[in-house]
């Protein structure tokens, strides 16, 4: 049990509090609904029942669902490593001897948390929504339709993800090709992938 207050500690601590609030609100709502269901059917259609349901069916569950979304969207950011399907890639990422870009980013803590999510999610609200829909597809594959033998990236990797951190950095601008009048527009438009010149971030074959 955490001894930290709501506004102290890191995000995980806040999420614990939000989870706790969600559980309490959910139980309270369930209690009201059970009481309503336990009464006579005629009473359920009465005005007092509807007032009770305003709290038990609208206010409390609404807050529970909101808490569930906040906690869920936070937790799923690091859920990529929970399916055994991704084990080879995760092992490569965490392997200190690996020289892949992913491993370097992980070993050097260039991306401190949620490494998979950070690189495989577009920026902004649209990126988050797209990632959630994609994640839902992954869960479907894992539990219902089966994982394909060959795992491929769904769409070409968005160059903006790399440029978000590297673009305009001094080290990046020192490379002639990055600022070349002909190549720069192609890089920025995504026509030229970073991986045309740089090594693939993950092992080319299943590690």
């Amino acid at each position, binding site marked *: 049990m955490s001894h930290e207050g709501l506004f102290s500690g890191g995000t995980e601590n806040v999420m614990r509090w939000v989870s706790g609030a969600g559980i309490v609100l959910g139980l309270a709502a369930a209690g009201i609904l059970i009481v309503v269901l336990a009464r006579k059917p005629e009473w359920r259609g009465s005005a007092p029942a*509807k007032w009770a349901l305003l709290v038990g069916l609208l206010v409390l569950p609404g807050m529970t669902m909101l808490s569930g979304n906040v906690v869920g969207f936070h937790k799923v950011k690091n859920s990529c490593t929970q399916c055994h399907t991704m084990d080879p890639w995760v092992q490569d990422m965490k392997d200190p001897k690996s020289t892949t870009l992913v491993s370097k980013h992980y070993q050097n803590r260039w991306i401190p948390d949620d490494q998979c999510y950070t690189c495989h999610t577009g920026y902004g609200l649209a990126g988050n929504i797209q990632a959630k829909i994609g994640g839902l597809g992954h869960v479907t594959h894992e539990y219902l339709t089966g994982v394909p033998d060959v795992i491929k990236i769904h769409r070409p990797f968005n160059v903006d993800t790399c440029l978000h951190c590297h673009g305009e950095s001094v080290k990046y601008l020192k490379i002639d090709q990055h600022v070349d009048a002909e190549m720069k527009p192609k890089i920025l438009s995504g026509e030229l992938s970073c991986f045309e010149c740089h090594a693939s971030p993950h092992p080319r074959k299943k590690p």
Partner: protein
Amino acid sequence: MSDVPAPPAPTTPPAAPPAGSARLITAACALGLLGIGFSLAHFIRPSPLLFALFMIVGQGSFGLALLFYVIAIFTDLRRKKVL
């Protein structure tokens, strides 16, 4: 004329809500409980599968419960000629 008080006027019991409204409320409660159940499962044991179930089944049933509740209220308001 005597001072005997007049007998109280006969009172009519409040009209019972229609069975349809009560059924809608019952269904709303059941669906609400289902949604809350998935929420609690997701809080207690967070995993991608339970989160997906919470998002689809839990919130879906909760949304349906709210719809039933709103329909029941509108039905009653129309029955009472408020709307």
